[in-house]
């Protein structure tokens, strides 16, 4: 894909620039703080020294989950929305409190503290289960509310207008996407049995797409660029794959037809690994793509401060280029949000399609599998 290679090129070239300049950045330059870019945020950290700009920390704090929603910083004081922390500890039971109790990692509360990665840990080092409503969780709830409102309203319109009235407004937009998913993703990959999987594929597609787009909003959470989210989606897809798989698939897996016995001993483990790799590929692909996009945009914006650290005037004039570049990559990201959602939905459909494939495909098996793998690779 063109956009992917372009992105790769950018990521490469700018990582080179970043490493070149990151040494100079260490030279303190308070002028960097004067441009109140909301994207250039820095969660306060015990190790963070005033006036210094740690680029990689900036970027990682931007793309990682947090226990509070950072909006912007005024001088050295970050303005954040505190979020609830919910922790279950086998020894101490359930405890809930607001993340503001931690005072951005400066204080411990109730036997818990934030470590330098922004994660909650017990002071005594015991095992805890952190199910806090973090920034990503809250963003996901927002996405869920948005999705539910959008689609329930659209479906209400279908119920009110009946099937024979031309769609209008949001219904029209949703319908185009639904028809696209049905005709381009579900039917070609799942065949006549596609109706059973339509809800899953549609939900995957729209969930990812809307979550992706919410992540693009400045100050938004990098939801789909978080491996826990993509891992969960991949696990769901994998569970569905396993539960819908037919005997034919497993027969082919454990006893590939037309192979000498010796080859079977090599082939079966490979096939098993490829089975496990399918959800892992789903997980990594979405995660890496969205993360890379966020990093690229953050890099463009941070370039302003890198240059400003060299010289205020260079930084000021470079901001024009940098904003133009980040707008450009933002537009590409907008495209990527839809493409990645489509790819996730499409690959899920392809994998499920391989699982439910039955004997009717036997004649064209070789070609069928081959084209599928090729499609997989091209995505």
């Amino acid at each position: 894909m063109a956009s992917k290679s372009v992105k790769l090129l950018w990521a490469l070239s700018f990582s080179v620039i970043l490493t070149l300049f990151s040494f100079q950045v260490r030279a303190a330059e308070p002028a960097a703080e004067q441009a109140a870019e909301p994207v250039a945020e820095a969660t306060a950290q015990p190790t963070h020294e005033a006036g210094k700009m740690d680029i990689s920390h900036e970027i990682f704090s931007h793309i990682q989950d947090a226990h509070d929603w950072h909006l912007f910083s005024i001088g050295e004081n970050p303005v954040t929305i505190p979020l609830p922390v919910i922790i279950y500890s086998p020894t101490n039971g359930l405890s809930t409190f607001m993340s503001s109790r931690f005072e951005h990692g400066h204080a411990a509360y109730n036997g818990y503290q934030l470590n330098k990665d922004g994660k909650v840990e017990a002071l005594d080092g015991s095992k805890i289960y952190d199910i806090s409503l973090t920034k990503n969780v809250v963003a996901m709830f927002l996405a869920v509310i948005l999705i539910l409102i959008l689609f329930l309203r659209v479906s209400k319109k279908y119920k009110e207008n009946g099937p024979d009235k031309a769609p209008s407004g949001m219904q029209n937009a949703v319908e185009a996407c639904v028809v696209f998913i049905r005709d381009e993703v579900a039917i070609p990959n799942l065949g006549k049995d596609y109706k059973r999987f339509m809800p899953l594929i549609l939900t995957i597609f729209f969930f990812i797409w809307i979550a992706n787009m919410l992540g693009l909003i400045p100050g938004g959470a990098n939801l789909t660029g978080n491996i826990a989210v993509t891992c969960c989606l991949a696990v769901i897809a994998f569970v569905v794959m396993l539960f819908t798989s037919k005997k034919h698939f497993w027969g082919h897996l454990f006893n590939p037809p037309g192979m000498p016995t010796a080859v079977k001993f090599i082939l079966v483990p490979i096939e098993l690994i490829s089975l496990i790799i399918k959800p892992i590929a789903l997980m990594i692909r979405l995660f890496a793509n969205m993360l890379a996009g966020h990093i690229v945009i953050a890099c463009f914006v941070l370039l302003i401060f890198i240059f400003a650290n060299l010289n205020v005037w260079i930084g000021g004039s470079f901001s024009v280029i940098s904003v133009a570049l980040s707008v450009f990559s933002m537009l590409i990201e907008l495209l990527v949000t839809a493409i990645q959602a489509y790819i996730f939905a499409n690959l899920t459909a392809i994998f499920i399609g391989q699982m439910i494939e039955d004997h009717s495909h036997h004649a064209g098996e070789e070609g069928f599998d081959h084209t599928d793998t090729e499609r997989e690779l091209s995505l």
Partner: protein
Amino acid sequence: MGLLTPDFGLFFWTLLAFLLVLFVLGKFAWKPILNSLSERENSIAKSLATAEQARKEMASLKSENESLLQKAREERSLMLKEAKDNAEKLISDATAKAKSEYERIVADAQSAITQQKQAALTEVKNQVGNLVIEVAEKVLRKQLANKGEQESLIKDLVDNVKLN
């Protein structure tokens, strides 16, 4: 680096959120949307098929009408021709009949005349015969004293009577 290690909490909430969305949308959104989509597609396909059917019917109706019209025209000309023939035949029949009647009447009249004439002649002959006999009687009563005179008289009389 924490980037590649999935958080348990986020995983848990994602699972919950996704399954919630899947359940709610599956029940209340995708079902009606997909159903009405396929319903609409069916109804569009049906309407198109119906339109095509109607078009075909129209075409067949038109050709049927045309053939009917053609047939009607043929029938009309046939009827006209028949009527004309009938009229001619009627006229000729009437003429022939009139002629034969006329001939019959004439023939009848002629035969009647002939008959009458014969009857009249016979009557006249009879009358004449009677008259002659009367006259002859009268004459004979006076003149026929002798036989010779008688015979010559009869002979004369007979010769004189000539049938027309």
